[in-house]
């Protein structure tokens, strides 16, 4: 097991460095190989993580919660690596090299973050993801990309500054109990829960929600998100929306665990509920009237992150199980949606919704798959997202938060209207005279989407037993016994 853990850390980094030096086909092959290897490695870890925590070198620690997030990232890494082969067909060698190097480095940081055993290393990993993804957002040489990259790196770095402050206060709280050379390890901090002084923990949690929440896309610090996700190249957007938001939410979850252990469930849950509801409301409203397909999907990501926060705030075990499942299902569905949108933009050469029409006729595979992804994002049964949102709402009703659950359902419905109204126009709208010729641009861009759709429905219909076990263990660790 420790070999696999070390491999998951080493392989993407090595791949990234290699891609800087080799010709583009080799770089593509290396990336695909690295992606599939990491995904396989994470899959191998799951049965073990469902029963015990894995430690290695005292810096790495995988428990059930982190395994869930790693699974989401691993899957998207593999899918996106395959997708990029087709997406980058028309780019030159230098661009391809930089792209693959950045992609691998980005995936490396996102895989490393859930594995970190201390809050400080977690912060460093998330900061590395910011830095690498900012360069990836700016890789397209357009005005919009430059603007989006600058906004992203500035706002996200400022938010992570607050996250660092949260880490400092967490150290302060921990050092009062665990001694001065406390190294910000997460496990001992949670174990020492009730002995921690309340004020620093409360401050740390709030700063973490606002600071890391900047990277998650919570209201009111989400403003970089639509820009960055729409201006980045599509594979990067898929990773940003599907994985990076989740990894940042993982950081908030760790602080949530500490806060619940020290302060009891009331304050942390109220805070998450407030931020989550505000994000969901804002996203639901902004989904109407979008004109850019990737911006539309970006706001959908804000919506789903809000759902995650609300789910955690409900606190019931079934709600927490729904949250963990939602992370996986959202990764698959959002990845599919972005990849489909990417096919559309390549085919029609525009990102504007008004220019994308008649998709079902023009793209025999990607059209229906994109439609499937969009409906899945709106919680169509039997997709994984339907199952997870159902569990979240059930948990909310079960734990007595009737009003919040009702608001959740209402806003999700509003979001469904906004999202599908635009998306169905893309698929079913009458093709204008200058529609491109029928046919898929590349098979490389279809296969990962098929895999994603399969995963999505697997999660919805019959999640594998090991996965359910893993999620159950994660729920117990998140304190779902109340």
């Amino acid at each position, binding site marked *: 097991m420790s070999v696999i853990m070390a491999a998951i850390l080493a392989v993407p980094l090595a791949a990234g460095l290699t891609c800087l030096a080799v010709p583009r086909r080799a770089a593509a092959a290396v990336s695909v190989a690295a992606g599939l290897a990491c995904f396989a490695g994470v899959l191998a870890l799951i049965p073990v993580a469902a029963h015990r925590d894995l430690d290695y070198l005292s810096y790495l620690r995988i428990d059930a919660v982190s395994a869930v997030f790693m699974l989401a990232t691993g899957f998207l890494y593999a899918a996106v690596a395959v997708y990029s082969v087709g997406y980058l067909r028309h780019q030159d060698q230098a661009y391809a090299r930089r792209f693959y190097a950045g992609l691998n480095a980005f995936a490396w940081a996102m895989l490393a973050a859930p594995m970190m055993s*201390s809050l*400080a*290393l977690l*912060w*460093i990993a998330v*900061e*590395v993801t*910011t*830095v690498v993804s*900012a*360069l990836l957002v*700016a890789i397209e040489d357009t*005005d*919009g990309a*430059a*603007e*989006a*990259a*600058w*906004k992203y*790196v*500035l706002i996200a*770095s*400022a938010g992570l*500054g*607050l996250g*660092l*402050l949260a880490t*400092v*206060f967490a*150290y*302060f709280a921990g*050092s009062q109990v665990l001694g*001065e*050379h*406390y*190294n*910000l390890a997460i496990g001992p901090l949670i174990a020492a829960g009730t002995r921690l002084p309340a*004020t*620093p923990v409360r*401050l740390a949690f709030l700063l973490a929600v606002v600071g890391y929440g900047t990277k998650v896309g919570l209201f009111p610090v989400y403003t970089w998100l*639509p*820009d960055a996700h*729409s*201006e980045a190249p599509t594979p990067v957007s898929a990773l940003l929306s599907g994985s990076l938001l989740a990894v940042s939410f993982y950081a908030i979850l760790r602080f949530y665990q500490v806060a619940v252990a020290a302060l009891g469930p009331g304050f942390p849950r109220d805070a998450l509920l407030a931020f989550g509801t505000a994000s969901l409301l804002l996203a639901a409203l*902004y989904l109407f*009237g*979008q*004109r850019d397909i990737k*911006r539309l999907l970006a706001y959908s990501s804000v919506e789903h992150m809000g759902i995650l926060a609300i789910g955690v705030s409900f606190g019931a075990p079934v709600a927490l199980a729904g949250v963990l499942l939602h992370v996986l299902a959202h990764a698959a569905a959002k990845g599919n949606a972005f990849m489909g949108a990417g096919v559309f933009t390549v085919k029609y050469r525009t990102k504007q919704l008004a220019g994308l029409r008649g998709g079902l006729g023009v793209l025999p595979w990607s059209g229906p798959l994109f439609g499937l992804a969009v409906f899945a994002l709106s919680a169509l049964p039997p997709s994984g997202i339907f199952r997870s949102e159902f569990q979240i709402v059930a948990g909310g009703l079960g734990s007595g938060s009737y009003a919040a659950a009702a608001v959740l359902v209402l806003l999700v419905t509003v979001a469904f209207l906004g999202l599908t109204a635009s998306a169905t126009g893309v698929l079913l709208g009458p093709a204008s005279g200058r529609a491109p010729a029928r046919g898929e641009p590349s098979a490389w861009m279809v296969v990962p989407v098929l895999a994603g759709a399969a995963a999505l429905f697997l999660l919805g219909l019959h999640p594998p037993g090991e996965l359910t076990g893993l999620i159950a263990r994660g729920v117990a660790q998140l304190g779902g016994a109340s």
Partner: protein
Amino acid sequence: MTNAPGVYQGAANAIAAVMLLLEFGMLRQALARDQVRLYAAQSALISVLAVVIAADRGLPDLYVLAATSAALKVLAVPLLLRRLLRAGGAGDEPAGVAGSYTLSVASAVLAAIGLAAFGFFAFGSLHLHGPAAPPLALAIAGAMVFVAFGLMIVRRDVASQAIGFCTLENAISLAALVVAAGLPLILETAFLFDLLVAVVVFGMLIRAHHARTESLSTADLTRLRG
């Protein structure tokens, strides 16, 4: 009559107060080159404070940290920033930096005073303090955080915003010295190197921005809306 604090506490308070003043100075400066100098001075003060706390509490780790922090934040980062600002080629300042205020200087200072007051009392009312530094220092760190955000908001050019971020990191280092002086050295060093990496990335993006628009102003970064 309020008592005067002890020597170390007084020194820590004085250093923190001067750091806050330097931050206001950065708010007032029109030229990015001068802002970078003020940032170097502020980083030097942080190193001095680290030495003071190390002497007071007998933490040898902090001496090493002070030296590393000085090397990085007083020498390396300002050097990097200055080199980036000379990106225009012809020496001094690329266009678009002077006059990049959204408010006039006096209004900006007054607004920043308001922000500083909020941060000051918000953090100060928590009554948190480490064994070495008094609660005042943490309150000043809180004020500095808010003024750094103010600096990023009020100025409309990328150089000021980048320097605002570096100042934010200084403010957080001050808070860390106050409440987390015993943080293991390796973690503190990792934070410092992380800052360096972030500055490098900022620099690359600033270069790209400058190459594209021939100025450092963010006034035309309004294309993406809604």
